[in-house]
């Protein structure tokens, strides 16, 4: 090459090309031919994971585009119209109810000081540990005709005493509100904490009274969080088909369960799953619309959050009593009742003390949870690292696509996986391997697959949040210091995400342990987990026997709730990495070009 030391003035125009210099390369430095920035293999990893995760959902969506008139006629006969109306009404009621209750509590706990306020601040998330299918059967058991409450009432007022119908739409809605309000509560709480006092102060200085300032500044700024919370609740409501069955409420998801388990009609189940998917897409669209175009990022004002106001006298007592009542109804009473049932069951010897099946089902639950947690966390680390090493917006978008499962209701994922597995079975049969049928119905492969699709986002969110500590320049620095990508992952990324990995393992394992709809649809014949057992016993009104497995699930679910939120609610910065807000990770990570660019 021609060395031109010293001055070089810019050369205008001209094309690059002194031609014919592709011969020898210095030793050990084989350039990546035709690869530009980024690395193929890492991008390929992301692509494969994204495809594996997206395919089941895509197949369900695809089935909507190729409808079969026969199937739809059947679906209309079994009452699809009624199911759709019920689903819409239930989602609307539960979203409104949870948002009002959750945001109200967040406002109360975040803006005021009253006795117990600090404790309630995190105790109010405890209901997260009580799955709705547990909460549901506890209240049915308590309040239904033969239950202790109505029995007592009849004792006092005679047998003709009026009591609202427990197995009803409204009771189902109330139970779901009680189960899901912590989501909007957490997000609204985080939004209030993130709001800097300066915005509120600016409104006050500009002449707005405290209520006007709250209405015009605080609430609009919290809107994206409220929308996200509402969307999350809507997804959970769409996913659930166990709880509502206690109350004889038939949503579309219940239809999926009945059509698949009752008739093994995969075509009909797929179409129904498609309907649920449409609901889910509508929810996401509504959330986007509610969030609006505004970004709601707040500038500066670090540390100074809204100063809470002290309540005195009757108002303080009312605040404390309100929080205590919510906590009692949603957590204390159900847990106490479960304990009661468990002890009476062992006293009366129902099932002969500790049911021998208990340990076996617990083992099954732990097996599934463990396998799923390890796979999800492994893939999560891979995705998080690859999207940093692979570079490029496409890789990042693909990585995000791989987390689609969290925004898709469980039954959709389950039916999608069912379709994929059936296809795989046909393929294996075609190849002369008669394992196909066994693969679909005989193993937990499908179940694990569906769980990975569903919970990958959970693992990825937590790992990615801790990888945020690894700035893009840190990865770049490691690379330019000569570390190969694998060494970057091992020596830089992994040591820094270790806390996130631990959290992710616990989160995914516990969520898999307490998950019910997917396992009901996909479990191999005869494969029981604790959650399945609880549902079966509760469906047969055998409350006492359901007490122990339900209590076990609640105890396990308490671990991450206590570990995470007790700490995060004390540290505003980490609320964003809370597992309940997959939306929190949607922010762009691109660093803006710094520097003032002062033209004198």
């Amino acid at each position, binding site marked *: 090459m021609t060395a031109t030391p010293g001055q070089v003035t810019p050369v205008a125009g001209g094309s690059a090309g002194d031609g014919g210099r592709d011969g020898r390369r210095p030793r050990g430095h084989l350039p990546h031919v035709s690869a530009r920035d980024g690395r193929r293999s890492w991008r390929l990893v992301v692509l494969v994971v994204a495809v594996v995760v997206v395919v089941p959902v895509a197949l369900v969506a695809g089935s909507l585009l190729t409808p079969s008139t026969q199937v739809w006629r059947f679906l209309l006969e079994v009452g699809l119209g009624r199911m759709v109306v019920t689903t819409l009404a239930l989602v609307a009621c539960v979203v409104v109810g949870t948002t009002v209750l959750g945001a109200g509590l967040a406002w109360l706990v975040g803006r005021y000081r009253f006795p117990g306020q600090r404790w309630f601040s995190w105790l109010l998330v405890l209901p997260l540990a009580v799955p709705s299918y547990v909460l549901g059967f506890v209240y049915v058991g308590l309040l239904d005709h033969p239950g202790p409450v109505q029995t007592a009432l009849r004792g006092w007022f005679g047998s003709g005493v009026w009591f609202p119908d427990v197995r009803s739409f409204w009771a189902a809605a109330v139970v779901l509100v009680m189960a899901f309000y912590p989501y909007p509560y957490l997000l609204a709480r985080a939004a209030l904490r993130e709001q800097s006092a300066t915005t509120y102060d600016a409104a006050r200085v500009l002449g707005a009274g405290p209520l006007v300032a709250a209405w015009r500044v605080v609430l609009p700024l919290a809107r994206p969080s409220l929308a996200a919370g509402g969307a999350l609740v809507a997804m959970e409501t769409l996913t659930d088909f166990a709880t509502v069955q206690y109350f004889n409420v038939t949503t579309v998801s219940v239809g999926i369960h009945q059509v698949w388990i009752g008739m093994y009609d995969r075509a009909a189940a797929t179409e129904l799953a498609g309907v649920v998917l449409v609901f889910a897409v509508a929810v996401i669209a509504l959330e986007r619309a509610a969030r609006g175009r505004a970004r709601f990022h707040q500038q500066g004002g670090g540390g100074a959050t809204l100063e809470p106001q002290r309540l005195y006298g009757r108002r303080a007592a009312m605040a404390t009593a309100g929080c205590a009542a919510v906590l009692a109804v949603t957590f204390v009473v159900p847990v106490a009742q479960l304990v009661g049932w468990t002890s009476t069951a062992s006293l009366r010897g129902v099932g002969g003390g500790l049911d021998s099946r208990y340990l076996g089902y617990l083992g099954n639950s732990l097996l599934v949870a463990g396998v799923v947690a390890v796979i999800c966390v492994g893939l999560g680390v891979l995705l998080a690292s690859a999207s940093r090493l692979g570079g490029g917006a496409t890789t990042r978008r693909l990585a995000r696509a791989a987390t689609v499962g969290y925004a898709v209701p469980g039954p959709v994922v389950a039916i999608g996986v069912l379709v994929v597995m059936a296809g795989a079975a046909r393929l294996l049969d075609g190849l002369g391997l008669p394992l196909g049928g066994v693969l679909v119905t005989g193993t937990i492969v499908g179940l694990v697959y569906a769980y990975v699709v569903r919970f990958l986002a959970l693992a990825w969110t937590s790992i990615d949040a801790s990888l945020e500590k690894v700035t893009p320049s840190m990865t770049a620095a490691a690379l330019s*210091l000569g570390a190969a990508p694998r060494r970057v992952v091992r020596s830089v990324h992994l040591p820094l995400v270790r806390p996130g990995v631990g959290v992710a393992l616990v989160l995914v394992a516990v969520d898999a342990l307490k998950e019910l709809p997917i396992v009901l649809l996909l479990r191999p014949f005869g494969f029981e987990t604790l959650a399945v057992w609880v549902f079966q016993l509760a469906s047969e009104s055998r409350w006492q026997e359901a007490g122990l497995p339900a209590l076990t699930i609640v105890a396990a679910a308490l671990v991450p709730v206590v570990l995470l939120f007790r700490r995060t609610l004390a540290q505003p910065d980490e609320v964003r990495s809370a597992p309940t807000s997959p939306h929190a990770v949607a922010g762009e990570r691109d660093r803006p070009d710094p520097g003032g660019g002062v033209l004198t």
Partner: protein
Amino acid sequence: MTTRTDALVPAVPSTMRHALLDLDHVTKRYGATTALDDVSLTVSRGEMLAVVGPSGCGKSTLLRTVAGLVGVDGGRVRLAGREVAGPGVFVPPEKRGVAVVFQDLALFPHLSVAGNVAFGLGRVARRGAGERDERVAEVLDLVGLSHLSGRFPHELSGGEQQRVALARALAPRPSVVLLDEPFSHLDRGLAAHVRVEAVAVLRAADATVVLVTHDQDEALAVGDRVAVLRSGRIEQVGTPSQVFHSPASRFVATFLGEADFVPGQWDGASARTALGALPVVGNGTGPVDVMTRPHDLTVLAEGSDLAADAAAAGGAVGTVVRTEFRGGSVLHHVRLADGSLLRALAPHTLAVPSGGRVVVPAPTDHALATFDPA
């Protein structure tokens, strides 16, 4: 410090000062935006090149193409004669032997100072622990941090972190050290101090350096040469004095410092303007704009003897519109009789308040840059 350099200098005869880094018609696009537009540059061994430009001018992209953090869409990048980026060629960053000191320093928070510095030296198995520890000690000694080798980054001050980043970059004996606005995260006073230290260390290591900055003063103070970048194109490359005193464009003139353009007419090798006949670079005929910087000019309060002399010698009469206090001197915005505005520095003892009548004497001590009228 300089006495230790012999151990650090790569075994290259000092006579071999050829182009170590060579950008040859490099173009880089991000979607529809062209971040680098046909950029050609060379950097010699041991040279410090400062690349300066406003935000978004492509200076960080330029650095990233050299480091291998992004590829190029056209042209070639050569390092020590080896093509590292070009048509069909892309050497990934870990195989380029280029060190980068990032704006946020990007120290590894889980590694000690020594661990950070040793990171680029590869695993012990390949080099041997002894050699590696020796090199770590050597580089830490160079930046004066030997006593802090066991500390973790968060236990260090901003200036110390800066030196760790520098030591980490220098440890593997990179062919080129790239600095990406490495002082901009420090506050102004500290930045100047740390910069002087860093430059001394880099000089001591005889490193070849490309410094990217948006700070003109920094570029002029540090660079052996300065490249001014604007919208992905190189406006000018030259020594600090060349780019400052003989800017190739009005953009360079105004970006590197305060500049005013006084209209006038060519008169052979000088220019006739409202300030009188001015010595200028070059010669020509017809209209011309002459660049003046505030320190080229001064103001004299009308009525003094000096002012009278200056007026007699062809100085221009004007009115002070506004003043800015600059410590030792005061910047005067002066409106001349013909309506044009000029900025002139005067010692604070000779400052004239707004509204005061002044004479601006013609600057005659050095030739001024000229531009075709806009």
